[in-house]
C-alpha cells in the first residue's frame, strides 16, 4: 500500500518539485518538498520520511553531502539521487556513496514512480 508512504523531494527547481509532487500525490504518496540539503535536513528533524529523492546539484548543500548526512542520521531511509550532469560518473559516485537508486534526467514521471515503487516493494 502506498497510502501512508512519505516522500521528500529535494530540488532547487520549484517547477520540478511541483510537477513530481502532483504526480506522486495522485498515487497516494504523501509528498513534501525542500529546496536544498539544508532545508531537507531541517525538515527531517521533525518528520520521518520513507524515501528521499534528491537532485545532486543544489545550492548550500549538494545531493551527495545530503545523502551522507541522511545515511548517518537516518540509516534506514532510502535515497534516490537524480541528475542530468555527467550521468555515468554521477551514477557511479552515487552508488559508491550509498544511494539506493539513481535516476538520470531527463526522465519520465512513471519511471521515477517505478523506482519508488520498487524501493517500497523490497
Amino acid at each position: 500500500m502506498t497510502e501512508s508512504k512519505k516522500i521528500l523531494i529535494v530540488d532547487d527547481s520549484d517547477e520540478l518539485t511541483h510537477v513530481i509532487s502532483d504526480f506522486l500525490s495522485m498515487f497516494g504518496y504523501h509528498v513534501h518538498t525542500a529546496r536544498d540539503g539544508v532545508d531537507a535536513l531541517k525538515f527531517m528533524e521533525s518528520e520521518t520520511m520513507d524515501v528521499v529523492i534528491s537532485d545532486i546539484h543544489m545550492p548550500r548543500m549538494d545531493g551527495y553531502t545530503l545523502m551522507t548526512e541522511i545515511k548517518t542520521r537516518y540509516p534506514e531511509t532510502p535515497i534516490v539521487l537524480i541528475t542530468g550532469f555527467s550521468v555515468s560518473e554521477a551514477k557511479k559516485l552515487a552508488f559508491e556513496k550509498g544511494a539506493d537508486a539513481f535516476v538520470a534526467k531527463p526522465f519520465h514521471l512513471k519511471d521515477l514512480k517505478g523506482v519508488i515503487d520498487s524501493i517500497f516493494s523490497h
Partner: protein
Amino acid sequence: MNRKTMKKPKRILCYTDLAKYSSYLVKYAYELSKIIDAELFVLHNVTDIGGAAGFYVPHINIEKLEDEVIQAARDKVYAICHQAVGDSIDAAHRLVIRGGLIETLDKVIKDKKIELVVLPHNGDKGILSWLRGDYAERFMREAAIPFVVLPMDAS
C-alpha cells in the same frame, strides 16, 4: 412565511481530488443525477505551476512532465469513475483541466451551465484547505449555485 423551493438541477458537477474515497463520491453524485434526471460531469483540476511554460530547468522539459501529470490524472479519473459506476460516465463527462482550482471550477460551472456542485470533505483536510483565500471568497460569493459537501470519512 415566504419560502423558496430549489428547482431540480439539470447539470451536476462532481469534483474529485483523486483521494481513495473518490469512487464513493462519484457513485453518490451519479445516483443523485439519476434520481433527479440530471447530467453529471466529473472534474479534477491539475494545479498550474504558474507561468512555468518556457521556464528553463536543466535537462528537463517541464511541459512534457506536466503532460504526463495530465495523462495520469485522466487515467485516474477514468479508474475512479469505472470503479464507481462502470462505463456509465463517458469521456466527454470526465474533465481534467490544468489551472487554478477556483478558476477551473468557476469556468466549468459557467461553460457547462452547472446547477449543483458535489464536493468531498475528508476530515482533516476537507474542502477548506483548498477553498481558502481570496479566490475562494470571490468564487463562493459569485457562484450562486448550491453545493453538496460529502463527509468522506463516513463513506
